[in-house]
């Protein structure tokens, strides 16, 4: 949205009306300049003031030098999706200055580094120049960290103008530097000096302001990768192999960070979880399949290109019936794509990963807290069904900060599935064969390496096999096995997380979505409802399609399937799995690598609905 100065209201009339706890701040900096610390500090201070807040990093695939933007959205009502149009900008990057200025809403607020010499092309903005270089020079900070500290200047100035509580800023710094006094002091001094400078030198002319609230009571701030890693550790993760890839890397790194804290064996003080950085994703998944087969709770985390490399082993795990958990933190593809942009484009690949007839269990966390929950739950499902479970998160969840419900301790004991150690195997006796469907639910009993009984062993393989895991080319062995595999998963869909349905009375249209788009969709639903639209919402949490989803789709005339990819991949799957409702399913795809906004949803739903009239 490009503001046009001729259409804007005079500044004075807007300034009179205060805008409290409802705006976005976008900070434009150069990648690698250390601005993340400053942005997190602002965001956390706002959170500690009790104001709902989110932070989204729109960053380049680069270590240093390219432009990066960080958007903090402040919203008293708790709507925290990305939104178009920024009320407040902090312009620190000369290279993007002109564009940043153009992108602001009419009457917006511009904080800028006063050494940027580009002219401000608009007259409707509130301007706050900041003597960044001067303030850093005046500080006693060592020369090698002055560039990093430069970003702390805007923290102080913005805090002053928006009335952010400085005590909260200090708390945020304490948290960030884990209580280490030296960096806390260094940064705090700059922030404080900048705050004081603003008090003495700037006159507030803009309407935006924050006021303490209590809307963050009972919430935490976290990112999805941290949540997933912690959830996995609470799920009893025993083996993780991985290979570095944006945006999944921080998941495995978080495991490293927390194993010493939470996963030292209380009995021996030894580690009960192994994390291994493999030579590539081919090896990472191979190790995980080996570990899953030998009875460990095993997982890997990756993103598109690495996920593609894992296809063959996932097919083997499906066929040999090995429980593994794979977290795909989606970025936009195909190919290398945009490594630092979000997407929901891996669904189609994930669902049928592997050649031949395959169909996998997919989980869709819809919040950061759900990343934690599915972190442990995925193992229960994988071990119960003896099959790969693929959890589709994305960059927006994985790497951005979300206000979310605190993580809850697992509400049930672990389900290790049908595992036979010596005693259990003795009891089953002759009835047992690795792939004999004793219970008729498609799920067979497995033994694990180390079982001391002479008849416990079997030879796992990707080749055709009979019920006793022996090589077989018999047509009926093949057919029976493949049919059982389908029954095993489709017949146990009830074990998977059910969809979350929000119903309005007498709605005949709906939105179906999953994952990180939830925030934008919930905001859009409020807005659409205010405009008179009655719309139900179903958030998918797993595939294969649950009966509840089928029923929901059937009971609406038009179901808009909203997702972040080109082809409407979930839409395609639902059409295949609910063929009688094919015409009731309409695809709305968002495809630019950025997180969904409520505005986009509202515009597209209204446009579609107008066509129906």
């Amino acid at each position: 949205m490009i503001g046009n100065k001729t259409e804007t209201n005079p500044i004075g009339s807007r300034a009179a009306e205060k805008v409290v706890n409802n705006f976005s701040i976008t900070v434009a900096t150069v990648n690698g300049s250390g601005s993340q610390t400053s942005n997190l500090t602002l965001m956390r201070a706002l959170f500690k003031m009790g104001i709902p807040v989110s932070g989204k990093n729109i960053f380049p695939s680069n270590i240093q030098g390219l432009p990066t933007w960080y958007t903090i959205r402040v919203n008293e009502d708790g709507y925290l999706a990305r939104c178009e149009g920024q009320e407040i900008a902090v312009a620190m990057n000369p290279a993007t200055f002109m564009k940043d200025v153009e992108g602001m809403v009419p009457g917006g607020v511009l904080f800028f580094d006063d050494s940027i010499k580009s002219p401000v092309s608009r007259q409707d903005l509130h301007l706050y120049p900041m003597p960044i270089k001067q303030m850093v020079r005046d500080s006693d900070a060592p020369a090698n960290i002055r560039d990093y500290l430069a970003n702390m200047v805007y923290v102080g100035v913005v805090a002053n103008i928006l009335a952010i509580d400085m005590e909260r800023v200090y708390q945020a710094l304490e948290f960030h530097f884990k209580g280490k006094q030296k960096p806390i002091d260094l940064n705090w001094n700059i922030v404080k000096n900048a705050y004081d400078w603003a008090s003495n030198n700037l006159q507030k002319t803009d309407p935006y302001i924050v006021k303490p609230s209590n809307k963050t009571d009972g919430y935490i701030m976290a990112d999805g990768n941290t949540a997933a890693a912690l959830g996995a550790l609470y799920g009893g993760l025993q083996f993780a192999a991985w290979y570095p890839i944006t945006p999944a890397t921080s998941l495995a790194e978080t495991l490293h960070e927390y194993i010493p804290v939470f996963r030292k064996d209380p009995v021996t003080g030894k580690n009960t979880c192994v994390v291994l950085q493999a030579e590539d994703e081919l090896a990472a998944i191979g190790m995980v399949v080996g570990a899953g087969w030998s009875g460990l709770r095993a997982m890997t985390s990756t993103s598109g290109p690495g996920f593609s490399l894992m296809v063959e082993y996932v097919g083997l795990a499906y066929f040999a019936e090995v429980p593994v958990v794979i977290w795909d933190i989606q970025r936009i593809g195909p190919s290398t794509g945009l490594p630092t942009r979000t997407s929901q484009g891996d669904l189609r690949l994930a669902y049928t990963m592997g050649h031949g007839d395959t169909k996998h269990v997919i989980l869709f966390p819809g919040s950061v807290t759900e990343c934690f929950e599915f972190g442990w739950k995925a193992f229960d499902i994988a071990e119960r069904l003896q099959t790969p479970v693929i959890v589709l998160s994305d960059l927006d969840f994985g790497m951005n900060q979300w206000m979310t419900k605190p993580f809850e301790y697992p509400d049930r004991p672990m389900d290790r599935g049908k595992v036979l150690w010596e005693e259990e195997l003795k009891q089953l006796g002759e009835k047992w064969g690795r792939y004999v469907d004793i219970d008729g639910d498609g799920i067979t009993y497995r033994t694990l390496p180390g079982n001391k009984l002479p008849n416990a062993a079997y030879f796992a393989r990707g080749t055709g096999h009979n019920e006793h895991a022996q090589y077989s080319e018999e047509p009926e062995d093949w057919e029976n096995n493949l049919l059982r595999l389908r029954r095993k998963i489709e017949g146990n869909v009830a074990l998977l997380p059910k969809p979350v349905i929000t119903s309005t009375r007498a709605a005949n249209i709906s939105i179906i979505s999953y994952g990180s788009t939830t925030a934008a969709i919930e905001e859009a639903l409020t807005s659409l409802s205010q405009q008179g639209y009655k719309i139900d919402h179903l958030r998918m949490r797993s595939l294969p399609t649950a009966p509840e989803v089928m029923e929901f789709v059937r009971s609406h005339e038009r179901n808009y399937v909203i997702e972040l990819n080109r082809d409407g991949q979930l839409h395609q799957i639902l059409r295949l799995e609910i063929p009688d409702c094919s015409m009731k399913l309409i695809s709305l795809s968002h495809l630019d690598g950025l997180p969904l906004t409520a505005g986009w949803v509202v515009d597209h739903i209204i446009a579609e609905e107008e066509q129906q009239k």
Partner: protein
Amino acid sequence: MTDQIAQTSRAQVNLVGLTKNDYRGNPSSLCQGCGHNSISSQIIAACYELNIVPENVIKFSGIGCSSKSPFYFLNRSFGFNGLHGRMPSLATGALFGNISLKGIGLSGDGDTASIGMGQFKHIVRRNVPMVYIVENNGVYGLTKGQFSATADEGLELKKQGTNPYLPVDIAWEALVGHATFVARSFAGDPKQVKELIKAALSHKGIAMLDIISPCVTFNNQDNTSHSYSWGKEHEVALHDLSYVPPAEEIMIDYEDGQIKEVTMHDGSMVILKKLDRDYDPTNRTEAFRVLEESNKDCCLITGLIYINQSLPTLFDLYNLPDEPLNRLSEERLRPPRETIDKVNAMMF
């Protein structure tokens, strides 16, 4: 009849009370005379003679003729036939389930030196404690006779014409990759194969065995270095090698200066009796030299080429409990309930 068999086998049990039959696998479906079958027999013999309980072994393989062979030995051991070139990763993960189990990986020259080169080099680099046997025949057998990466330069095969490339030397690659046990042998020398397998099973670390194992169907011409006849004519053993189990008396006759003893970490010993030369398998530079020399002189150097028992294994790098990881109960895997508040406090 049945009684008779039972009686005979009762008479021949090893120290863990098992007969040789208890170490056998299914009948081989490989070609008659295939070198791989001979190696399978030596694995059976070595495990029987070492009194290894089959339940304490896990077998792994990739894809190819070689990778079928784990089905033909140790039926009482767990096994996993994985993907082409990716046995090493599978084994690495699986062995973490219970690090007291002995891993035996079977691979071929296609599986290791082509598609699996990366995983081979990395399992070696990590020193995963297991036996890694490459049944090396210089040819793709299961797809009917294509050149492999270890095929001789100039090798002529019916459908393929002449091989223009220089071969990959698996023992050399292992050595470059810091393997802690490197041996080369020849399926036509079963005694040495068996002794090397025993030594490998006692090694604490990765034990790479590059065994020339002729493909009688596609690459057994007299002039190819992977054939029986070539091997028989050109084999030059570095030493006469015998394995002595822990706490057993050394019964070999020798004169001073004629033998070299290598004490393994489990107390067993590898006795290397001098043949034509002095050879010290703990000297890595020497190891490179003999390999280079054997390639230059067109001979098949066999024996224990290199051993280093001082490096930590992959498992040593993790502070793992004594009890197998795959037997840990829920209480030891899931942090207690009261920690969840701490977790949430660590967020913001």
